[in-house]
């Protein structure tokens, strides 16, 4: 069910991955099988953060992989990145999201919008294995990100941040956060700016860890900023560009979530097939019953559709005319299809699928968030429709 390896042609459509991309995919798949899979169920049960695995991912260069080589990163293209997130998420959606957040919503905006000085100061550590975070959402500002209330007030050569952020992945672990705050309360959406804030800044407090339905070994908390001083040099882009930066970041990061959903979907299909071949009812493996076969055919086909949309979105030029719509389409489709696929796979598992002894039960909890975070399905549909209607 993976894409065949074939020589690339010079022009026209080409669905083949490059040799480098195939190599990265294989390497990460092997790493996930050998290093991540063995303790995943236990870590999930214990809500244990996979510290060693994250350190190894950093050593492999997978946490700042799209950062330019000048700043210590791997200079990878977005499709290679998507393959990595897919393979990590196939065996651990928790590890997948921790890697995805560091790469897509922390390193990426700094790499794209940061000054050379800021990048030299911040990116080598991130690209070298430190975790990153992204603080946009607030208790009162979810889908309506433009209504955020965290304030940043200029004071000498620093900005002073005050406010509350919610649902922050990698909270408490991140070396750096990209934080969105209001610098001009009278300027509406243009009054928001982005800052790079050190995780150990005085005045930055990490709240209690959230009890989530899934992704349990990935820590999520609120952040509270109380008179938190951030050097003026840590302003990302220009004052007032924050929302633009946040939306561009989300356009990009949706490819990561699509890839995460794709990895979960892939695993759900594999588990369904393995279980159906093994499980005997009415005297034959249930894989011989047409009702089971047709359900597997359905989720294997939507998997192919998700993969095509996701790889396509990841392979078009960044910032191109259709890039945002394609990323939203990929995220919308892949997350919805993965939820459905996990549900079907669990159904094929019968009563066993309702037991935490089986991997599919964890996937059922883990997959749920993919239609919610980094823009709900409803927000994706709004983004897509807006682009269709403005053509």
């Amino acid at each position, binding site marked *: 069910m993976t894409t065949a390896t074939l020589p690339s042609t010079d022009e026209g*459509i080409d669905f083949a991955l490059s040799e480098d991309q195939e190599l990265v995919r294989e390497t990460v798949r092997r790493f996930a099988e050998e290093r991540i899979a063995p303790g995943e169920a236990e870590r999930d049960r214990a809500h244990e953060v996979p510290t060693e695995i994250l350190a190894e991912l950093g050593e492999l260069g997978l946490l700042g992989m799209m950062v330019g080589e000048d700043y210590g990163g791997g200079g990878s293209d977005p499709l290679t990145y998507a393959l990595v997130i897919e393979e990590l998420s196939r065996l651990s959606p928790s590890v997948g999201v921790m890697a995805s957040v560091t790469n897509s919503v922390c390193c990426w905006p700094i790499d794209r919008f940061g000054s050379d000085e800021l990048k030299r100061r911040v990116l080598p550590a991130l690209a070298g294995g430190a975790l990153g975070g992204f603080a946009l959402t607030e208790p009162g500002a979810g889908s309506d990100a433009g209504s955020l209330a965290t304030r940043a007030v200029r004071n000498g050569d620093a900005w002073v941040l005050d406010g509350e952020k919610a649902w922050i992945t990698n909270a408490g672990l991140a070396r750096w956060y990209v934080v969105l705050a209001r610098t001009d309360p009278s300027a509406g959406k243009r009054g928001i700016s982005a800052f790079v804030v050190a995780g150990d800044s005085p005045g930055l407090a990490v709240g209690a860890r959230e009890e989530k339905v899934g992704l349990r070994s990935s820590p999520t908390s609120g952040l509270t900023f109380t008179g938190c001083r951030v050097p003026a040099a840590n302003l990302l882009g220009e004052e007032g560009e924050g929302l633009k930066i946040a939306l561009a970041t989300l356009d990009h990061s949706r490819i990561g979530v699509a890839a995460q959903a794709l990895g979960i979907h892939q695993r759900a299909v594999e588990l369904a097939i393995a279980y159906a071949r093994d499980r005997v009812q009415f005297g034959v493996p249930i894989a011989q019953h047409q009702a089971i076969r047709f359900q597997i055919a359905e989720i294997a086909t939507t998997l192919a559709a998700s993969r095509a949309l996701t790889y396509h979105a990841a392979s078009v030029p960044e910032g191109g005319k259709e890039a945002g719509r394609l990323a939203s389409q990929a995220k919308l489709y892949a997350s919805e299809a993965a939820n459905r696929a996990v549900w079907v796979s669990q159904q094929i598992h019968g009563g066993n699928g309702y037991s935490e002894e089986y991997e599919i039960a964890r996937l059922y909890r883990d997959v749920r968030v993919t239609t919610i975070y980094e823009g709900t399905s409803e927000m994706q549909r709004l983004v897509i429709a807006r682009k269709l209607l403005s053509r």
Partner: protein
Amino acid sequence: MRIELSEEQKLLQETVRRFAEEVVRPRASEIDESGEFPREFFAQAGELGLAGVAVPEEYGGAGMDAVSYCLVIEEISRACASSGVILSVNNSLVCDPIVKFGSEEQKREVLTPLAQGKKLGCFALTEPGAGSDAAALRTTARREGEDYVLDGNKLFITNGTEADVALVFATVNRDLRHKGITAFLVDSDTPGYSRGGHEIKLGVNASGTTELSFQDMRVPASRRLGEEGDGFKIAMAALDGGRVGIAAQAVGIAQAAFEAALAYVQEREQFGKPLAALQAVQFYLADMSTEIDAGRLLTWKAAWAKMHQKRYSLEAAQAKLYTSEMAQRVTSKALQLHGGYGYTREYNVERYFRDARITEIYEGTTEIQKMVVADWVINRT
């Protein structure tokens, strides 16, 4: 990984779109209503090289690749699904198997006029008692000297009312089941060959669907395609390619319906504003566009796999399965967005809705596609 058409493919797409808009679309509603087979369209398409898109130039074809073929079928079907399937059958189900399995003589004599659009082909596999279970066919072929004598009945044959050449599947020995099936290239003026009237259908009503019957019909052995017993293999190989064509047809129909809906919701005002300002309407558009893109990618992927892989049955079945159901959903939503107007014949969207329905049935039903996909993913990986 690069999903971008080549310059040549873009040029082809533009050319075919213009032909479809100027020549095909204006007659689409009329022939849907009357059931008239658009024979002159087929001839014109032939002059443009669209009757044998992937046939080598030395045999009268355009010598293009499988993705280009998808572009042709999508664009023609976007204007008129009947015209789309007429071309798809001639290309995928008649020309392609001759290219792949035919003798040099068959390629010169039979393939060339088909690829040029001078003759029209049909594919005669289905029978009253053999639909999805094609191996159960009962048409017999008995060897007599240098000829075979064929007897039997075929059903639901697209292009059948007009075809000059039929690719007929018959069995030399029913006990052998699929291993007895043999393929023949039969001229429609052969004594013993007769066809029924035009079958009135829910959609794709101008595609000349009819029944064929053969009585003591003598076919020279030189017109046998492949060897005795190769017929089932030939039919299945043809259908792999055919499914990519039908997937492209489904994408074209869905695209037409989506474009009609996108335009309509921006014009139509209710509650003091265009329908497009309503969130529920926007959500429909977003889902339709996403699914069409997914379907087109799966179709191109199958075409690409056809060019690069030995077997592409899985990709073809997935493309056909997904796009046909997608077209059903998209055309239904497009009709819904048109409200009462969509249910009238004044608007094209009701035709798209009716036309989309067949893509879930012909060249292997949705259920057959699921059997193929399940076989590949459960038993062969």
